[in-house]
């Protein structure tokens, strides 16, 4: 027990003497939490629209005005023909081209039906889909308006209507940042815990001090505990810092109990540190460790449900994400912070993450050899 105190003392002194680490645990969380939620915004707005109006009637003008005043679209060009509008799409100046055919107004009255042509730049599928849908619903709305304005057939009112009322629980304003911030905080805690642990041990290998430790009677699990505890503490510091930033900048206060959060993060950190430890036992240089760590972190983060829903993944990918500790933290963070879930609600997550902690650390201890 006493030896662990000596180890802890040493680790903390080294950490506080290392500027890179201090920057990493203080500046990085703040900057990331400030920039990422602002940048990571999937909301689709400011869609660049180019209009080719062959009709030049009041009807077409009103429609165009209606589209632009919806707030989703920005008129970036008017072209006399589709052919001349297309280069705008090639150069990304237009995401969407709306073509109104000649005699649109006249034919609408005569034939009761007219077509509008919409071309969407679909490289970004999501944006194209949503942009198209927005435009469609604006056109439908407009359609209804002109029906009311021009002729109101009585029979139309007789049709049954299903009225849909929808309510959005836990985040009524549909604020995307409130959704992103807890997820980003989860990533931060993971990255810092994992990278620091892996790099720290490999550095001792690279410099050669680990050899000196290996000839001492120091017990294996003491050494590993001596490494885990400081980074566990740092992880919690980063987490606390992150919560404070979330509160100060975004006004996010966890709906649920803070103790639930800390209990979960405490167990989770053990799992992540165990992973860092495990990586370090496989590597000889910091470059290697960093690269391997980066590789796994990338998979963990991309498949952790931060940006895209896990439910939508194909079965094989869902299976992989079940072995991804990050996905559990992201989901628990969102549950507790946004929905106020309690310990009972997250018990399955907690159990699985605890299992991760045991397996990863056990594996790392087995793999850490004092002899070659």
């Amino acid at each position, binding site marked *: 027990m006493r030896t662990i105190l000596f180890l802890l003392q040493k680790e903390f002194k080294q950490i506080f003497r290392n500027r890179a680490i201090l920057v990493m645990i203080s500046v990085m969380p703040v900057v990331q939490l400030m920039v990422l939620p602002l*940048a990571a915004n999937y909301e689709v707005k*400011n869609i660049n629209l180019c209009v080719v109006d062959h009709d030049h009637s009041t009807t077409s003008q009103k429609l165009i005005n209606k589209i632009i005043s919806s707030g989703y679209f920005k008129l970036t060009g008017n072209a006399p023909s589709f052919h001349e509008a297309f280069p705008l799409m090639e150069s990304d100046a237009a995401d969407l081209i709306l073509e109104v055919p000649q005699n649109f107004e006249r034919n609408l009255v005569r034939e*009761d039906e007219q077509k509008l042509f919409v071309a969407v730049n*679909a*490289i970004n599928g999501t944006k194209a889909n949503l942009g198209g849908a927005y435009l469609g619903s604006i056109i439908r709305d407009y*359609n209804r308006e002109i029906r009311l304005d021009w002729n109101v057939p009585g029979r139309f009112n007789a049709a049954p209507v299903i009225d849909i009322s929808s309510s*959005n629980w836990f985040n009524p304003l549909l604020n995307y940042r409130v959704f992103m911030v807890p997820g980003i905080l989860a990533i931060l805690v993971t990255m810092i815990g994992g990278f620091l642990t892996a790099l720290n041990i490999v550095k001792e290998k690279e410099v050669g001090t680990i050899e000196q430790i290996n000839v001492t009677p120091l017990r294996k699990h003491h050494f590993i505990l001596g490494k885990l505890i400081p980074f566990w503490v740092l992880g919690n510091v980063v987490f606390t810092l992150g919560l404070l930033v979330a509160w100060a900048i975004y006004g996010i206060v966890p709906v649920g109990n803070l103790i639930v959060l800390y209990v979960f993060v405490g167990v989770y950190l053990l799992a992540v540190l165990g992973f860092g430890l495990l990586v370090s036992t496989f590597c000889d240089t910091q470059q290697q460790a*960093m*690269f391997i760590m980066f590789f796994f972190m990338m998979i963990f983060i991309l498949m952790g449900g931060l940006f*895209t829903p896990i439910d939508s993944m194909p079965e094989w990918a869902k299976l992989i994400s079940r072995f991804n500790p990050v996905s559990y933290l992201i989901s628990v963070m969102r549950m507790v912070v946004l929905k106020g879930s309690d310990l009972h609600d997250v018990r399955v997550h907690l159990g699985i993450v605890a299992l991760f902690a045991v397996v990863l650390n056990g594996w790392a201890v087995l793999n850490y050899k004092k002899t070659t």
Partner: protein
Amino acid sequence: MKQFLTFVRKEFAHVLRDRKTLLILFGMPVVQILIFGFALTSEVKNSRVLIVDNANDAASQQLLTKIEASQYFEVDRSVMSPLQMEAAFREGEIKMAIVFPANFNEDLLHQNQAHVQIVTDASDPNTATSLTNYVSSIIQDYQASLNQTLSVPLRILPETRFIYNPQLKGVYNYVPGVMALVLMLVCVMMTAVSIVREKETGTMEVLLVSPFKPVLVILSKAVPYLILSLVNVGTILLMSIFVLDLPVAGNLLLLLAESTLFIITCLTLGIFISIKTSSQQVAMLISLMGMLLPTMLFSGFMFPIENMPVPLQIISNIVPSKWYYLIVKAVMIKGLGFSAIWKETLILAGMTLFLFVISLKNFKIRLA
């Protein structure tokens, strides 16, 4: 020249000897393509939906069948009080609840108006919006089918064509992004760290006192990564053609030439970082924070740049990957020629030149 080749050979030996890193270098693009190509989709589907059918009559049953048939939902029927519902939301069991009131059919038939209530877990706003939209359109369809017999006057029918990516596949957006990301990682991070490593272990001094020009020492470190990166570009292109069915629409040679330019930009950036730093950890930190993150954020392949606050939009202009991403998109997907990307090319070339000059300047100061 012969000396230069000797140095390059030494660097290759270093790179090739580290099997673990090498495996990851080549495995990274493959895994990324697979993840982005097959696992990730921002489309919302397979969401668990609770249906509380208090009516249990003909109309509600018809609507339910329609909802259950949709691939977007995994429907679970049961009757719950609002309180139980909230608990289910908190445990994360359901993403949405649809509640039919008692007398749904009757209201619809006799009063011409019936209500459906939708509750979503809006902690994920995108999923909530999408789910609401899906259900609304199913209900509207149903409503339209009730009105089928009546003809509607004055129909405006938008006819939508999706250009470049008719099936709306995510890979069209991701592949150029993955290219930028992988090249950034390999070139900047690997070059910076490997040079700083030589500084840390002291072997750099040995090289610098050799009669060989110091600038060439540094350049020779960049050559293996240039070649590795070209191999990675090849892997990504082959995978995108044969695995993802995404062919190169434009000129392949032009794409390769532009990629080489971007690789050189990244290498210069890596060299610049290595000159400015003295420990591997700092070099990694800068590459990670300063390069990779901005590439993910500001190249525009994950998040639309035009949605960001103006200061971030301005910052995005100094991220080289943004320009490369635009180039790849133009050449590979839109099939455009050099005339469409000369501006982006010029910007990348300018950045490279700038980085090269300041690296050279800083390097000389260090030696003096």
